[in-house]
């Protein structure tokens, strides 16, 4: 560019020539503009290539979302694979109140679809106007079909998310063992709590692209795969569990008792085959009320074991060598002093041998035995059988029991301990101690998981002495014993009754706990069972509230079924065959004599008369 002097310009007085360098100025401006351009390019390059994370993130945040992938909790099954707790998907409806609040038509449609009153829903939404999230009332964890129907209406601002809910198909019968989970799927009680880590899955995460309405348009990337919870196989047998529960319920109804527990252990492995308690609750519908029924009494309740202690006292005496199975013990006159108090028997049994003390459940008898034992030895013996310490089953809330050490015994404690007063134990502890007697003196750790036994059993007692005590306990269920009602046809049963008076207000009330602890079959014990019936109706008088009357038949009914279910061969087949022969003879007589009058009389004829 050049400025050309125009001819017309010269007519005036010629202007002074420009005193600046035009070219340089132009260069300067051009250079500055170029620098600006370069700066922009540099910045663009910087943003695009070098320092792009920040804006990339901002941009992604507009449409990319990280959403969790829900995962289910592991299933709990019984030892045969029958489901006891199953997680099933449900839908939870939620809404964005901000979006709903200025859209009355949408609220109306939602109210219609959900069946909620319109004014209630309108108020509910307006109260949450400043929030971005709310659950649609009464539509959390609903049936997927219901949610789908509502979602099909495409009401703006209403969404649905999948959650998992726990279902317990067996309901009340197993509720204490299983426990339950809260609304966030975390274990709260029982096995659900004890094995929460194992059962719980890890939710995954994925990146998705969402549109303006929050609907997922595209799945972009997997950040973390969801890990479903692991399944858990319990040692519980559903059939035995139900049998125990049903029979316990029946007994409680018949005797008017307040509560009860049944524990069945596998003698060799310590696996809990059944653990039933009443009162029970339905863990599908857990409400805050009636907390009393939520307790797993078999592991949390502390009770004085009463006479179920006696076989252990006798075992301690045998081990110390102070008595033999044939030692004569004089229980005359049916009572003996114990400090200011008196230890008395149900009636005067006179002269008994050691076996007779167990057969008749003589308090005086065991008191005389325990007098021969040093305090520390007796204490150590009972501790070896797990009294005073937790069984190690790992069940939440398990009580260790109370068992004072000899230093804290008063003058009367040792004698009362010998027949089960002055210490408190859980039903599980009794079952475990008895299992040791049936397991050749080896004390196992109870477990709720199939195959979960530690395998290391502690030798608590010489196998020979354990066998002797088993023989003594067998007489309890034979004629002359205190628990003839616990006898099972075809099997020898070893057991011990207990009728403990309940302590109340510093003394003992005329209220009772009826126990039966037993092992079956005697030859090769499979089951260790403890039956506890708390506070039965005493108005029947006599011994109708005792362990031999109430708990022993309950034991027999449960075990008859359990032995059959677990295919345990009978160890007393002779008695069974004899009973069968008698029955056949009776039937033959009934069929052989046609006269109805005689036939009717036939069943009355003594059964024992048959060969």
């Amino acid at each position, binding site marked *: 560019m050049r400025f050309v002097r125009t001819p017309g310009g010269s007519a005036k007085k010629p202007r002074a020539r420009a005193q600046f360098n035009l070219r340089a100025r132009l260069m300067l401006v051009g250079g500055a503009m170029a620098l600006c351009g370069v700066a922009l390019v540099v910045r663009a390059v910087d943003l695009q290539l070098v320092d792009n994370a920040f804006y990339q993130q901002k941009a992604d945040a507009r449409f990319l979302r990280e959403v969790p992938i829900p995962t289910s909790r592991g299933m709990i099954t019984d030892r045969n694979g029958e489901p006891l707790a*199953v997680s099933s998907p449900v839908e939870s409806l939620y809404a964005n109140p901000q979006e709903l609040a200025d859209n009355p038509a949408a609220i109306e449609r939602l109210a219609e679809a959900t069946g909620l009153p319109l004014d209630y829903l309108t108020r509910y939404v307006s109260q949450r106007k400043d929030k971005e999230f709310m659950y649609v009332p009464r539509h959390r964890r609903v049936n997927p079909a219901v949610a789908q129907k509502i979602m099909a209406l495409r009401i703006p601002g209403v969404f649905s998310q999948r959650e998992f809910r726990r279902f317990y198909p*067996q309901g009340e019968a197993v509720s204490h063992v299983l426990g339950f989970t809260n609304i966030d799927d975390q274990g709260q009680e029982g096995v659900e709590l004890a094995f929460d880590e194992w059962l719980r899955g890890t939710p995954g995460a994925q990146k998705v692209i969402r549109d303006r309405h929050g609907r997922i348009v*595209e799945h972009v990337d997997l950040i973390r795969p969801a890990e479903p919870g692991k399944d858990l196989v319990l040692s519980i047998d559903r059939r035995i569990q*139900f049998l125990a529960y049903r029979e316990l319920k029946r007994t409680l109804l018949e005797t008017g008792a307040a509560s009860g527990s049944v524990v069945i252990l596998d003698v060799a492995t310590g696996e809990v085959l059944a653990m039933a308690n009443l009162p029970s609750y339905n863990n599908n519908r857990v409400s805050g009320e009636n907390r009393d029924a939520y307790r797993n009494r078999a592991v949390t309740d502390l009770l004085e074991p009463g006479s179920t202690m006696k076989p252990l006292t006798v075992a301690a005496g045998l081990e110390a060598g102070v008595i033999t199975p044939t030692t004569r013990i004089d229980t005359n006159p049916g009572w003996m002093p114990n400090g200011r108090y008196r230890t008395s028997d149900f009636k005067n049994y006179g002269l008994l041998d050691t076996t007779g003390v167990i057969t008749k459940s003589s308090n005086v008898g065991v008191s005389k035995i325990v007098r021969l034992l040093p305090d520390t030895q007796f204490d150590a013996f009972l501790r070896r059988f797990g009294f005073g310490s937790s069984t190690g089953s790992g069940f939440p809330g398990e009580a260790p029991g109370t068992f004072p050490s000899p230093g804290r015994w008063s003058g009367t404690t040792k004698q009362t301990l010998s027949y089960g007063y002055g210490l408190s134990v859980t039903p599980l502890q009794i079952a475990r101690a008895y299992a040791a007697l049936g397991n050749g003196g080896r004390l196992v750790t109870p477990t709720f998981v199939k195959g979960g036994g530690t395998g290391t059993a502690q030798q608590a007692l010489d196998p020979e002495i354990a066998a002797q005590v088993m023989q003594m306990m067998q007489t309890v269920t034979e004629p002359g014993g205190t628990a003839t009602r616990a006898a099972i046809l075809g099997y020898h049963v070893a057991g011990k009754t207990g009728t403990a008076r309940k302590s109340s207000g510093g003394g003992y009330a005329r209220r009772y706990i009826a126990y039966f602890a037993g092992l079956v079959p005697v030859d090769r014990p499979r089951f260790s069972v403890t039956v506890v019936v708390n506070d039965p109706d005493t108005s029947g008088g006599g011994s109708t509230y005792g362990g031999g009357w109430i708990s022993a038949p309950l034991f027999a009914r449960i075990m008859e079924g359990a032995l059959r279910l677990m295919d345990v061969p009978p160890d007393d087949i002779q008695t*069974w*065959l004899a*009973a069968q022969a008698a029955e056949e003879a009776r039937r033959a007589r009934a069929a052989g004599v046609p006269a109805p009058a005689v036939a009717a009389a036939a069943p009355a004829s003594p059964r024992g008369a048959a060969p």
Partner: protein
Amino acid sequence: MTRLIVAVLAVACVISAIGVVYARHQHRELYVQLTRLERERDELNIEFGRLQLEQATWAESNRIDQVARTRLGMKFPTAGEIVVVQP
């Protein structure tokens, strides 16, 4: 010589860029497929769980007990009705 190298590199760069785009596209497609299959699997698992639950509910011990006793008129045989076979 240098020009040739530059040209080769430039072409390689373009090819690899296209390759990246292609791989990315494929990844997306496969991921979508994976998600779909996973969802299918989950649905089947869930259906299985639901059926198991349903079966367990039908097979609930108390219900079986009631049905056997009342509707089918079954009872447990008494000791006398069981025949023991001597081995």
